């Protein structure tokens, strides 16, 4: 999904001279192309993320539209206070494309795995947070953040995420969508991990368990209405994310449930007070961290009383 987003940045670069591709010594095929063919719209800040972020805020204040592409941790965590003080007060028109979010860099280890980024950025005034699930969604979200004037964080994962949508897919900031109707349990998922939920839902259908699936790309502002409706319909809610359960989608959904007196059983699936365990392919990483389709099925069966609660 990262290239479908940066490809869209290239399209903006071609038609809007104020759009700048910003990076900090990071390889990306599309940005490398921009560097060669549109050098006046490309800035490499080197390995200096705090300066990169604050300087981009300065560029934005002069009417530029910086699209910063960085490993999300180096940007959202190392440069957090620079985002807070130089970008957020005036809602500067800076676009953060954070790669290696979630388990995408599963061979590299915890320094490169962004698993607390949402928790941090969600606390910042004016910051829009979007975690696309697929390449098409990432592309459409990139268009949406260009059209929106203000600070946006696009939580990009890695490469090769499966596609769930067709070319007609319309993305709207702040809107979730039901991608599978169901009546027993609702999974609210953000990011490409939704593919595991799709597989789990299909398997469970064979056991006559009806799973509703909500894709929740925008985490801030959160689509409260779709959550409230889900609790009325299924009474069982599970959140799913490649992120800590503290401060991420799970926390955001729980706030909606609590504040609206929703009567539902609720479970959060994500990292439980830990960093990503183990190394391996992304699939292996999901299994090691108990977030693959089998663990999702298990959790649902447990919730519906189809298993002993002790695992």
């Amino acid at each position, binding site marked *: 999904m990262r290239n479908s987003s940066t490809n869209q940045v290239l399209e903006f670069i071609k038609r809007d001279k104020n759009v700048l591709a910003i990076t900090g010594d990071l390889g990306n095929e599309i940005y490398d192309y921009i560097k060669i063919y549109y050098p006046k719209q490309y800035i490499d800040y080197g390995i200096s993320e705090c*300066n990169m*972020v*604050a*300087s981009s*805020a*300065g560029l934005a204040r*002069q009417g*530029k539209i910086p699209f910063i592409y960085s490993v999300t941790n180096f940007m959202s965590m190392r440069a957090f*206070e620079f985002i807070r*003080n130089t970008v957020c007060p005036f809602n500067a028109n800076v676009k953060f494309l954070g790669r290696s979010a979630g388990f995408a860099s599963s061979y590299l280890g915890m320094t490169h795995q962004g698993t607390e980024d949402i928790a941090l950025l969600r606390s910042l005034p004016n910051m829009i947070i979007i975690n696309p699930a697929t390449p098409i969604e990432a592309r459409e979200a990139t268009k949406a953040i260009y059209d929106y004037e203000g600070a946006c964080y696009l939580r990009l994962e890695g490469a090769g995420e499966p596609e769930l949508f067709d070319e007609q897919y319309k993305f709207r900031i702040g809107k979730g969508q039901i991608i599978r109707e169901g009546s027993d349990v609702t999974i609210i998922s953000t990011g490409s991990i939704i593919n595991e939920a799709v597989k789990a839902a299909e398997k469970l259908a064979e056991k006559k368990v009806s799973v509703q699936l909500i894709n929740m790309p925008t985490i801030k502002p959160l689509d409260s209405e779709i959550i409230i409706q889900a609790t009325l319909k299924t009474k069982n809610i599970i959140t799913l994310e490649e992120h800590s359960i503290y401060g991420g989608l799970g926390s955001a959904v729980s706030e909606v449930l609590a504040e609206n007196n929703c009567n539902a059983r609720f479970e959060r699936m994500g990292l439980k007070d830990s960093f990503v365990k183990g190394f391996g392919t992304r699939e292996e990483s999901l299994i090691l961290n108990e977030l693959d389709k089998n663990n999702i099925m298990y959790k649902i069966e447990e919730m519906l009383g189809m298993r002993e609660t002790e695992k």
Partner: protein
Amino acid sequence: MKNNIDFNEKARLLRIDILRMFFNSGHGHLSSALSCVEILTAIYWKMIEKGNLNVNHVILSKGHAAAALYAAYAQLEIIKRKTLFEFYRKGDTDLGGLLSYKINGVDIPTGSLGQGLPFATGIAKAMQLDEKDEYTYVVLGDGECQEGSIWEAAMFASQHHLNHLIVFIDKNDLQGTEYVSNVINMESLEEKWKAFGWRVESVDGHQVHEITEKIDKLEQSLDNRPIVIIANTIKGKGIKQLEGKNGCHGQVPKDIDWEDVLKDLNMSMEEFKNYEE
């Protein structure tokens, strides 16, 4: 218009306004503000002399000196003078003790050190991309140069030949708790900035004409390097209990002899107390 500006008089008025603010508040970073009065006077009124005042292009990175910027804004009629006396008051005032972003012309809040210069590199870079012949001015503290992000920005500015970026270091030799040299010694600042590819000059930071002449000289002889002017200053300048004293940061002593302080500024206590609009 040219040469009609009495820079010394502007600096004197700024000092009086700053003193009046702290006379009222009894709290705040008085000594930080008093050390950069002439630097700010030179920057703003030099821009006026050149006919292109753009306060958005002046970044006070050492946000603790906010009072000096507010006072300058009052003199420049960007804010009303009477709002100066809201400084450090409780309630719905826009004038924070550190630099507030609620004031027109202030593009980022500062006070968290090491953020103003990185921000300013973006302003300067944008103007370079747009081929504008306009300058960006930054005021840093010498203690502030302990922040790593200052040097990230310094490397970037020199790599990108941001020669319209002019940084003043308000070198008063004191930081929050101690003499800079006793905490993390920054000497030689000059050699450090040179090594980072900057053109380095120094001035007496309380001689406003020396500063304006330096600005003129440098702007008329640009090469491809960004510029840093080390301004040697005295923290708390004008108040004997504070001047250059260890521990003067954030202090407004109860026993200031205001009449004595005002004597140097040719103002009586009576005038000072009634000094508003």
